[in-house]
């Protein structure tokens, strides 16, 4: 069976616990990081466990890259140990009676694959010096990196990660994040990543699925989904848009770096990044202001032509404006009075002034 012919993930589950019901019908991309996002109790971990087969939804359908793993219409359910997946648990869940090496080889021995050279994975996750150690002697961050390597060593068709950073303190999170960033750039398989952290969404997601009380509220590419006016996140005080950009050139005399995106460019404080490197830029909605004409004289560097695509009233006197710049959406929070004075309407051509940006990786 060719895996390229059908590179997507199709997942339909209906699971009723009485006080909680998971009911989803999703088509997810076959590459990149899809974040399953929601508050605790939204069903995101249950959904991941159903995909892994650790939990069985009585009515379900799951196909990953052309492999059918569950289809209750045909009474088909492939048990977890026969699914080509990698799973990273919230608290690493290493086998305490095996060394790091023993943990890494546990799955490999059983997968029927030829003994693989683990060096690239060990280097990617920076754990090559830990092989002889027992899990007890590792820090939380090291344990989680070993757990990720253990899942990847099997060469799975999909990597499932259940809040891999949630049990780590701030310092350990910072320690492991660069590795996740590298994974993101290297992996060719789809990653489904469960989290309740907006920070992790902004840093890692290519694709976002928002869950609430067992239902999918919104799903789609990250920038589009984060800027949808019908999801609560767009209205929160820290609402923001995330853009994927590439470094275009450096203006060394001004200590600036210009980054390009589909339909424009931005000037950022100088970055130690090579030309062509890809970056994520986060723009807070409250750092975006709108004017009808191109400002003739302004200290703000990033003024971009935009069009208004949608508007909504926020709950504390502000308006949430959704703009489109080139092919990217941008959220702006302005006061309701400003919106009225400018006479903003969907479809209008305006200028967006971006007062500040932050780099996520």
């Amino acid at each position, binding site marked *: 069976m060719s895996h390229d012919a059908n590179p997507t993930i199709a997942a339909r589950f209906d699971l009723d616990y009485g006080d909680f019901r998971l009911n989803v019908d999703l088509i997810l991309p076959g590459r990149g990081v899809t974040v399953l996002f929601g508050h605790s109790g939204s069903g995101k971990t249950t959904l991941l466990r159903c995909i892994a087969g650790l939990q069985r939804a009585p009515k379900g359908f799951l196909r990953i890259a052309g492999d059918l793993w569950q289809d209750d219409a045909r009474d088909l359910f492939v048990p977890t140990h026969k699914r080509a997946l990698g799973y990273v648990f919230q608290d690493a869940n290493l*086998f305490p*009676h095996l060394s790091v090496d023993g943990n890494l080889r546990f*799955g490999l021995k059983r997968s029927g694959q030829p003994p693989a050279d683990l060096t690239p994975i060990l280097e990617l996750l920076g754990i090559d010096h830990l092989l002889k150690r027992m899990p007890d002697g590792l820090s939380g961050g090291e344990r989680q990196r070993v757990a990720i390597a253990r899942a990847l060593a099997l060469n799975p068709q999909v990597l499932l990660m259940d809040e891999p950073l949630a049990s780590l303190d701030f310092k350990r999170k910072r320690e492991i994040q660069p590795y996740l960033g590298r994974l993101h750039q290297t992996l060719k398989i789809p990653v489904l990543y469960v989290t309740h952290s907006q920070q992790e969404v902004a840093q890692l997601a290519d694709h976002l699925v928002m869950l609430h009380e067992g239902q999918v509220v919104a799903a789609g590419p990250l920038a589009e989904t984060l800027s949808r006016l019908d999801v609560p996140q767009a209205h929160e005080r820290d609402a923001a848009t995330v853009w994927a950009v590439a470094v275009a050139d450096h203006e060394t005399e001004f200590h600036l770096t210009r980054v390009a995106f589909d339909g424009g460019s931005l000037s950022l404080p100088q970055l130690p990044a090579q030309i062509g490197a890809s970056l994520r830029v986060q723009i807070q909605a409250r750092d975006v202001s709108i004017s009808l004409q191109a400002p003739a004289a302004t200290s703000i560097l990033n003024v971009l032509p935009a069009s208004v695509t949608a508007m909504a009233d926020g709950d504390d006197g502000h308006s949430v404006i959704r703009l489109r710049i080139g092919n990217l959406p941008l959220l702006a929070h302005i006061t309701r009075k400003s919106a009225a004075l400018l006479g903003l309407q969907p479809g209008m051509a305006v200028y967006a002034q971006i007062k500040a940006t932050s780099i996520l990786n």
Partner: protein
Amino acid sequence: MLTPDDIATLWLTFRVAGLATVIMLILGTPLAWWLARTPSRWKGICNALVALPLVLPPTVLGFYLLVLMGPKGPVGKLTSALGWGTLPFTFNGLVVASVLYSLPFVVQPLQTSFAAIGRQPLEAAATLRASPLDTFFSVVLPLAKPGFMTAAILGFAHTVGEFGVVLMVGGNIPDETRMVSVQIYNHVEALQYPQAHWLAACLLAFSFTVLLVLYSALKTHPVAHPMT
């Protein structure tokens, strides 16, 4: 000093206890695994049945076994029909009775350590391509090692020390069913106090050593706690 008779009873006792322990581990492992993980409503009844010998007077258990395995009991009729004769007052009968009598001392530590493992390592193993049976041998057994040690030691030691069941089911046949505890009783009845002293001291030293080894080992592996 120990007479040859005393040494024969010691040897018989260890053979009964050793064989009973092996059988209890083989029967007790799946039983404890099932009890530790089943949501079944039969679990309560099974737990109670397994634990019954803990509270039942040994003579009561011995009496029922005698009746069941005797020539007129259902088990006795079955064993006779199979050509094995009847079990009471034989070595095999003694082993069967010991297994039933000491089973809670094997099942409970195993059940506790299986429950302590939880479902997490099992799920990790499943995501790493291990079938349930493979997981049992490669993950559960190593993690439950302290539980198995406790179970084996307690099961063995408890069988060595039994008296009531032995007297009811086994009787007092030299080299066949006469165990140490009965031999001590015989010595006391015959007013052979020095002999009784020697055997009693042997059992005391044995029991103390066993418990000492057990609790020192458990200090380093605090996973399993005998519930008894």
